[in-house]
């Protein structure tokens, strides 16, 4: 391993399994992300999911932009055995009921499957129909990082 390490780096501080044998400082990324794209009703839809320790970031876009940012947070009550209810809050962008409905439909399962982590959703959909939201949800499932 030592021949791959940069000469200035103190060897004792590096764990060999995080160093790759490429030049420079190549370390395993701290943030794991997956992306997928699919044409839904003729519209190119891109999905990126990134896992942070305290949040899951999901970007769903048909405009190529982040769009409306919505936080979907589980209401955790200690001793509650049932699935927690979710609170949606528009942090940036258009705060209208359909955005809350889409957000809850799209990422409730992400929060549930990731041990109730809050989800940050970037939503930029041209088509907010039930069919489209259902199809987008399947794409999110393929980008599982939690």
């Amino acid at each position: 391993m030592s021949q791959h390490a940069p000469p200035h780096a103190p060897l004792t501080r590096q764990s060999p399994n995080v160093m790759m044998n490429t030049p420079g400082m190549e370390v395993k990324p701290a943030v794991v992300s997956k992306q997928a794209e699919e044409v839904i009703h003729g519209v190119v839809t891109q999905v990126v999911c990134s896992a942070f320790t305290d949040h899951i970031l999901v970007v769903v876009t048909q405009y190529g932009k982040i769009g409306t940012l919505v936080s979907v947070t589980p209401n955790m009550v200690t001793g509650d055995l049932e699935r927690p209810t979710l609170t949606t809050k528009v942090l940036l962008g258009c705060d209208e009921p359909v955005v809350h409905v889409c957000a809850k439909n799209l990422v409730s399962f992400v929060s549930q499957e990731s041990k109730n982590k809050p989800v940050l959703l970037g939503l930029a959909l041209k088509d907010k129909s039930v069919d489209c939201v259902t199809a987008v949800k399947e794409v999110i499932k393929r980008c599982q990082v939690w």
Partner: protein
Amino acid sequence: MRGSDVPGSQVPARGSMEAMELSHRLISIHNFSEKISERLVHFHVMSLQDCFFLWVGSSASLCSLAVAMCSRFDSMPLSSMILGDKSDTTSSSFAQRLSKRTKKQVFASINIPCNDSQLMLLVEKRIKEEMESFPEKF
């Protein structure tokens, strides 16, 4: 139809969608790390159409998030905290400076202790270097 691991260094291949006319660019994800002042700092950039998301941190937490964008009313971009402690202006000032530099909408999340101003300067310098080396990633 594709769902794959993102190695962080390339835009996905077009595959079966070659025939599709894209009106916007594909999202690119770029990760890099650097040892700065004895501390390993990770960088994660998600670049979209006319905007990008930049995350910086030592551990993979997302404690703060700020947004900044240019407006025609002021030479300095507007910025706002959208997640986390509003009194900690690190993320919003970063977003503001990056927005001024790139003229894009910038989402920034800086998750390193803000008491070390020297570290902050080095982090910003590192981002600028990466922007010069890989302008297409931002």
